[in-house]
C-alpha cells in the first residue's frame, strides 16, 4: 500500500527524474574542463588529486541530488498520514510492520534514483570505476534516506521537517563535501563527521582513482544504520498507545 500510495504522486515521481536531469545538465553547461586539484582524505592524508572541474562537479552534484531527493522522500514517507498510521497501530498493526514496508519502498527509491543519476553522469563522462561510483550514490541515498526517516520520526510538522532536511542537506551534501572546499577547510573533522562524507569519498574515489572504496563504503553504511536505529526507536515509541 505504501508503494501504491507513492506511485499515485505522479508529479513527485516526475520530479525524481526531472530534477537530476536539470542538475546534471546545468553542471555540464556551466563548468569547464579546467584542471583542478582537490584533496580526498580517504585516499590518504594530504593526498592531492588532479581532475577536470566538469567531471568533479558532475560526481559531486550527482551525489547531492541523490541525497537531497531521498531525504525528502523519506521524510514524506514518515510524515504523510502520520495520524492515520497511528490509528492503524491502535487498531492492531505492529509498528515494525509499518516501518518495514516503508523502508522497503525507501530502498527501492534509493536504488532507482541512484541508478538513474549514475546513468546520467556517465552520459557526460566515463568514471574510472562506474559500479563503485554508483555504490557511492547508493550510499548517499541510504545515509540521507535514513536521515529523512529520523527527521520524520522526530518532528510532527511538515515545515520543521523540511527545514531540518534542507538545512543539513544543503550545507553537507550540497556544499562542504565538495572536495574543492575540503583542502582549505579550517576544521576538517566537522566535514568528516557529516552524513555525506563517506558516500562522497566513495563516489569521488571510484570516479577518479583506483583506490579501494570498501572502508569508506562500510563507514557510510554504518552511519546510515545508526541514524536508522535511532529513527526506529523514536518511531516505535511514538506509535505506542498513549503517546503523542
Amino acid at each position, binding site marked *: *500500500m505504501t508503494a501504491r500510495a507513492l506511485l499515485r*504522486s505522479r508529479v513527485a515521481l516526475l520530479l525524481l527524474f526531472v530534477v537530476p536531469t536539470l542538475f546534471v545538465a546545468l553542471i555540464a553547461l556551466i563548468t569547464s574542463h579546467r584542471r583542478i586539484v582537490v584533496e580526498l582524505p580517504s585516499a590518504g592524508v594530504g593526498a592531492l588529486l588532479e581532475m577536470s572541474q566538469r567531471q568533479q562537479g558532475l560526481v559531486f552534484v550527482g551525489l547531492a541530488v541523490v541525497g537531497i531527493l531521498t531525504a525528502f522522500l523519506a521524510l514524506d514517507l514518515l510524515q504523510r498520514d502520520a*495520524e492515520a498510521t497511528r*490509528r492503524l497501530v*491502535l*487498531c492492531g498493526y505492529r509498528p515494525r510492520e509499518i516501518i518495514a514496508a516503508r523502508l522497503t519502498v525507501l530502498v527501492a527509491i534509493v536504488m532507482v534514483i541512484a541508478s538513474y543519476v549514475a546513468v546520467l553522469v556517465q552520459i557526460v563522462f566515463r568514471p574510472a570505476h562506474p559500479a563503485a561510483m554508483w555504490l557511492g550514490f547508493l550510499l548517499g541515498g541510504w545515509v540521507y534516506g535514513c536521515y529523512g526517516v529520523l527527521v520524520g520520526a522526530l518532528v510532527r510538522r511538515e515545515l520543521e521537517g523540511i527545514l531540518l532536511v534542507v538545512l543539513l542537506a544543503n550545507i553537507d551534501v550540497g556544499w562542504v563535501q565538495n572536495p574543492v572546499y575540503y583542502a582549505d577547510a579550517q576544521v576538517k573533522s566537522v566535514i568528516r563527521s557529516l552524513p555525506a562524507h563517506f558516500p562522497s569519498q566513495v563516489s569521488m574515489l571510484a570516479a577518479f582513482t583506483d583506490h579501494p572504496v570498501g572502508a569508506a563504503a562500510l563507514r557510510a553504511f554504518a552511519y546510515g544504520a545508526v541514524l536508522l536505529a535511532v529513527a526506529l526507536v523514536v518511531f516505535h515509541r511514538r506509535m505506542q*498507545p*498513549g503517546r503523542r
Partner: protein
Amino acid sequence: MSGEPLLEVRGLSKSFGRHAVLTGVELKVGPGELVGVTGENGSGKSTLLKILAGRLRPDAGTWVLRGRLGYCPQEPLVFGRLTVAENFACFAAAYGLADWRPAEDDLLGRFRFAPYARTLVHELSAGTRQKLNLALALLHGPDVLLLDEPYSGFDWETYLHFWECAESLRAAGRGLLVVSHFVYERVRFDRLCALRDGKLWEA
C-alpha cells in the same frame, strides 16, 4: 444498564500545562447502552475519547474495557492517497480480519458510499470521508464504540442511517459512547452527560 459494564472509567484526569481539561471523570457504559457526552468547545470531550482510544496518556485515572474497541476520531484519520477499498483492506489487516469483504460491502451500502469504493480518499467530499472514518471504526464488529462527532458533515439521510446503525448495534448488545457538541435528539440516548469544568454530569 444490564450486566457488567463494557467500559468503566474511574477518576480520569488530564491537564495541558496549567489548564486542567478533565478532573476525575467517572463513566460507565453497559452492554446495549448508548451514552452521549456533550459540552462546549474545548470542554474536553475529544480529549476524553483520545485517552480511552489510546491516543493520549492521562495524568491520572483508570479505565476497564471489556471486548473489542472501535474508535471513530473527530477528524477523519484515513489514508488520502489510497482508495476507499484500500483503506478498508489496511484496517482489516490491522484488526486481523481474514474476510472483511461482507462487512465492507454492508458498511458501504449502509452509509451509501459504495459508488466511491474505488475512489481515492483525497478526492472525496468531507462528508464521504467522514462516512469512511466511521465505517473503519465499525469494520471489525466492535463491542464498545467511541464515536467523536460521528455525524458531522452528514446529510440528513445519512444522519438517519447513522442512527439506524447505532440502534442495531445497541440492540446487538454493544456499548456506544457518542461525543458531540450538538445533540439534536436527546431521546436517542439512554443517558446524556455534560462535560463541564472537567467533570461529567448527568444531563
